[in-house]
């Protein structure tokens, strides 16, 4: 275990060192198709203009992405004017371009030139349902409270989303949340009747669905633009400004459709677009293949879990040793660790962003906090259940406190302690997939992208290696246990 700790620390230090030496422009994106695609277009354009680029795609939501930008974790990402006004600046009304520039300047941010299209919300129903119920406009929904609404989580909960729409039109329906990438399929299969779509979604070309007209002009305008930090190099900003008005609604929808329907990669579609627009010489796609991507994700995943687990072992065991003698203290520690466990992982990750930014750091902190409970709980339980006779003998033989711990209590507690570490490790490998939502990379990355694209094979590229990694970890612990613990002490070991 100590060796693992040392390796973990080395990996971490090496990682930090590498990050510090290169200064690429970091391009981010949210976790839906268009955002990935625009991020990729921006990244390729910057590369074509000679900049080193790092891609940090797939942040789970506007606020996470925006936090990443203000924290300097990313330098630029595609955003929408309506979203900036409503969800970020919370102005309550759309801002004119000049106001937007001024307000963002206060945050040291700059909106670059708009790309041309307006990707606003579009309430979408199955075409068959629309015909049957004669639905043309959002107002027509008022008389159909029986319709099942499945809305993307962000739309359902933002102030300018469903709550305000419901008020504006007097809509009677209740809304359930659904992952946007899954919504079209749910709609097509009749699991839901209505969902919020984006007006440039490629899926609108794939499924037999109808967009209801926003007859009261409720939805604000969501013009896409690269939102950048003000310290983005001028040359880079100028390069991105070349994208100004290059994409109208139809063009954007067609590009999205090529990814979603044509199963083309973001990189390929972005390269074709840039070449067709005359912004780059030709489609020079330096697309990384399956194996390099996979191995990079696996390494990142192992790095995340290993560092978190090593720190949790260190802190958890120290804590257990410090408190196990006091029943009251042990209770407090177990209670707090248990409480941490009840925070939903994605919520904990989001809560950590203001404190630790985005990327690996908050992910490691979150995994560390989740790993604490099984480690501390098992260690304390093991230590307090050691035979009192052995305790008495250890003291009576004249061992110091440390010697008692090192030579008697800890070896006797080891089977339980290892079982705790094992649980923490396996759980961490699973939980670490969620870390992709805050840009930590790892095997969650293809899962998040796959969810956005509703692409099962992409999801499996993350899910299968994660499952195999968990299995390998189980196996490794099996071997470690066999190696470290005499067989007769493992007889009562709980099998998971």
């Amino acid at each position, binding site marked *: 275990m100590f060796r693992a700790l040392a390796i973990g620390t080395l990996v971490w230090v090496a990682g930090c060192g590498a990050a510090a030496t290169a200064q690429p422009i970091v391009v981010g994106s949210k976790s839906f198709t268009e955002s990935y695609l625009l991020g990729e277009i921006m990244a390729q354009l910057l590369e074509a203009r000679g900049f080193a680029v790092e891609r940090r795609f797939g942040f789970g939501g506007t606020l996470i992405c925006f936090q990443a930008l203000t924290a300097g974790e990313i330098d630029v990402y595609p955003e929408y004017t309506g979203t900036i006004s409503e969800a970020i600046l919370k102005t309550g009304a759309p801002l004119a371009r000049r106001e937007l520039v001024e307000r963002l300047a206060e945050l040291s941010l700059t909106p670059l030139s708009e790309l041309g299209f307006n990707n606003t919300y579009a309430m979408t129903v199955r075409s068959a349902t629309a015909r049957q119920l004669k639905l043309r406009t959002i107002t027509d929904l008022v008389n159909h409270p029986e319709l099942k609404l499945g809305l993307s989580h962000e739309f359902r909960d933002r102030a300018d989303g469903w709550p305000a729409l419901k008020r504006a039109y007097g809509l009677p329906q209740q809304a359930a949340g659904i992952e946007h990438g899954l919504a079209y399929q749910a709609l097509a299969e009749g699991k839901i009747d209505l969902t919020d779509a984006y007006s440039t979604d490629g899926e609108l070309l794939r499924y037999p669905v109808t967009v209801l007209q926003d007859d009261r002009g409720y939805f604000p305008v969501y013009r896409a633009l690269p939102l950048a930090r003000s310290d983005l190099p001028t040359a880079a900003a100028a390069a991105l400004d070349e994208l100004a008005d290059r994409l109208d609604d139809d063009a954007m929808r067609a590009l999205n459709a090529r990814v979603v329907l044509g199963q083309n990669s973001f990189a390929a579609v972005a390269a074709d677009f840039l070449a067709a627009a005359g912004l780059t010489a030709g489609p020079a796609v330096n697309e990384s293949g399956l194996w390099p991507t996979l191995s990079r994700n696996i390494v990142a995943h192992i790095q995340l879990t290993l560092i978190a687990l090593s720190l949790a072992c260190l802190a958890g065991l120290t804590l257990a040793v410090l408190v196990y003698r006091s029943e009251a203290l042990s209770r407090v520690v177990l209670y707090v660790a248990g409480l941490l466990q009840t925070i939903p992982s994605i919520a904990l990750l989001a809560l950590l962003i203001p404190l630790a930014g985005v990327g690996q750091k908050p992910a490691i902190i979150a995994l560390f906090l989740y790993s604490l409970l099984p480690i501390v709980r098992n260690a304390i339980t093991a230590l307090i259940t050691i035979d009192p006779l052995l305790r008495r003998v250890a003291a*009576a033989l004249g061992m110091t406190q440390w010697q008692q711990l090192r030579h008697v209590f800890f070896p006797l507690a080891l089977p339980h302690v290892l079982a705790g570490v094992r649980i923490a490790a396996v759980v961490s490998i699973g939980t670490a997939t969620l870390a992709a939502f805050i840009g930590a990379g790892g095997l969650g990355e293809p899962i998040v992208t796959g969810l956005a694209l509703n692409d099962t094979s992409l999801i499996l590229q993350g899910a299968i290696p994660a499952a195999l990694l968990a299995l390998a970890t189980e196996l490794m612990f099996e071997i470690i246990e066999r190696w470290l613990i005499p067989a007769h002490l493992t007889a009562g070991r709980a099998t998971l």
Partner: protein
Amino acid sequence: MTPIVEFNNIAHRFGTQQVLGGLNLALPRGETTAVVGTSGSGKSTLLGLINGLLYPSEGQMRVFGAPVPYTTLTEFRRRIGYAVQGTGLFPHLSVADNISLMARLTGWSRTATVSRVAELMDLMALEETLASRFPHELSGGQQQRAGICRAVMLKPELLLLDEPFSGVDPLTRADIHARFQELSGRAVSSAVLVTHDMAEAVALASYLVVLQEGQVAQAGRSDLVLAQPANDYVAQLMASARV
């Protein structure tokens, strides 16, 4: 010669319950003392007071002619061997590692440690092949002999034994007794043995302390206590020794 252990007006309470009260004892140096009495008479508590596992509620404990040093118990306890009922052998260590653990922790050389372990195992009739076994692979009698080896490993000036011979069959027990007598002649000078078995007490000890409900009913040379019991309780106990 100063007594090896002195109890000066010792009382010991667990919460409100008085376990021992008004104890005045001087245990002779260079001899084996047996502490006897019915269960609940405070025998084990008395032993725990000697090596500082327990702190007296009243009175002063003197061991090796000086007050028990409660601030430096580690050093103090290394001068006192301790063997206990059920042996208390550490299940994760081999027999040899159990016996030699304290020697390794106190910086004995490897050769000195190895030869001492061999000497003690030989003395307690434990075959060499048992050295690498784990405690649970030994018979009850073998475990208890290994426990005694561990207790005397550091050549203690005083050996404390808390019913270490109970729980084995009579034949094994007789054998262990013989081994112990051999040991006390060669490796240990003073010993305090707690037992509920009067025959064992009389066979192994030259000095007897009879406890009755936390008080000393009688203390003195074994033959004297046998010949002139101080009260009916002592007389009854002594009678069981002759069976």
